[in-house]
């Protein structure tokens, strides 16, 4: 069953055509990596999936809901679709554990003891149980991002979106975050859509790779075939560029 489905989707920022005739289907449980040059529309695409950006034309089905239908309750979708941002977007006025517990408390009305237990479990999972009481300003970038991932997981989502989760991190922090993401991908029921420049991560974890340029999907193939023989010249050029640094 498909978890995310784009059908002839068009997205404009004013006059600027940001997504051009996007067709894409992601099955439940799949891990898909989205790559492409800067400005190609990766963030735009991923942000339409949880309604942070509206589409102007076409159909976008997420977990069975049509996002282009004004009657769709966006909050229902966001309950089931988590997002991890490049700049973490942790709640600056809340401690690490409160960051994790807030949405389950307010949105899911999860019982407080249960909420705390789950939050502690997630902190263990991301290796930060000792930082539960710390404020975001007291955490390193890598720690912030792992808390942000735990915050998303606390909602027990069906799908997770990652928009360049390691791009703002110092190189030595990247590994810890990717390890956590690898763990999540290993859970066969979780659908993941990941924008990243970490090609080794893509090779190791992705079922499929999508290559975008100028608002269009130019290539959509299995990870193996994408890295062995990309059919698009622009994808070939992109790969050689990211391989060079």
């Amino acid at each position, binding site marked *: 069953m498909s978890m995310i489905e784009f059908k002839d989707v068009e997205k404009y920022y004013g006059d600027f055509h940001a997504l051009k005739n996007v067709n894409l289907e992601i099955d439940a449980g799949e891990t898909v990596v989205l790559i492409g040059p800067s400005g190609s529309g990766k963030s735009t695409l991923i942000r339409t999936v*949880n309604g*942070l950006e509206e589409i102007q034309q076409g159909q976008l089905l997420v977990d069975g809901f049509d996002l282009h239908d004004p009657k769709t309750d966006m*909050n229902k979708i*966001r*309950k089931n679709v*988590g*997002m991890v*941002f490049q*700049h*973490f*977007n*942790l*709640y*600056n*006025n*809340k401690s690490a554990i409160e960051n994790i517990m*807030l*949405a389950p408390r*307010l*949105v*899911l009305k999860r019982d407080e003891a249960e909420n705390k237990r789950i939050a502690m479990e997630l902190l263990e999972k991301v290796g930060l149980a000792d930082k539960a009481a710390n*404020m975001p*300003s007291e955490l390193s970038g890598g720690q912030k991002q792992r808390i*942000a991932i735990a*915050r*998303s997981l606390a*909602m027990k989502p069906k799908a997770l979106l990652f928009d360049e989760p390691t791009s703002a991190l110092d190189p030595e922090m990247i590994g810890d975050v990717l390890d956590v993401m690898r763990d999540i991908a290993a859970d066969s029921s979780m659908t993941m859509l990941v924008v990243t420049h970490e090609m080794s991560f893509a090779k190791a974890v992705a079922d499929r790779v999508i290559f975008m340029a100028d608002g269009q999907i130019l290539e959509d193939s299995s990870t193996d075939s994408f890295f062995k023989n990309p059919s698009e010249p622009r994808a070939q050029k992109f790969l050689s560029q990211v391989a060079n640094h």
Partner: protein
Amino acid sequence: MGLLQNYFSTFLQGFGYTLLSSVVALVGSMLLGTLFAIMQVLPTRWMQIVGNIYVQIFRNIPLLIITLFLYLAVAKVVKMNGFTAGTIALTLYTSAFIAETVRAGILSVDSGQMEGARANGLKFGQAMRYIVLPQAFRVALPSLGNQFINLVKNSSILAFVGGLDLMYQGNMVAANSFDTFTAYIIVGIFYLVLTLPLSYYMQYLEQHLKAKA
């Protein structure tokens, strides 16, 4: 200081009314100001416009004019005394400044905070209440402190409409005793009794929150 002894209960009554008016106006203007600040940052265009018109009207008319308008015109329709008219005027006037302060505070909070909260499943109102506003108030605190102190001082507007406040009683004492100078010195000291602790409390809050952040 014989004057203070002779008229102590008069001054005290004035002090009481000034305190009451200030507290009511402070709470009222915080609520109204925050409401109109939020209206101005909502995505709905007409709400922004309504919020902006409100702010522009009340912050660009002298407080005295608003007070007289309520006391002389509105009071003909809805019965109210000088104290009520003055306190409502003070609330409306101050709320416009607080709306601007809080709005600036909201805009200073990184948009990633709202986005993170919405993506996390929170409704707009929940994100505002639990994430954005607490950070906005922290930024706005020094400026809010100024507004509160101005509010206490501006409550002397009540004297113009027989509001029985400190200034009003001071005028009475000055006229009755012919010791104008001492009367107003005493009034000034009573205002300090309100504004100084308020100043220090706001400073303390600022420092306290800075230490926590």
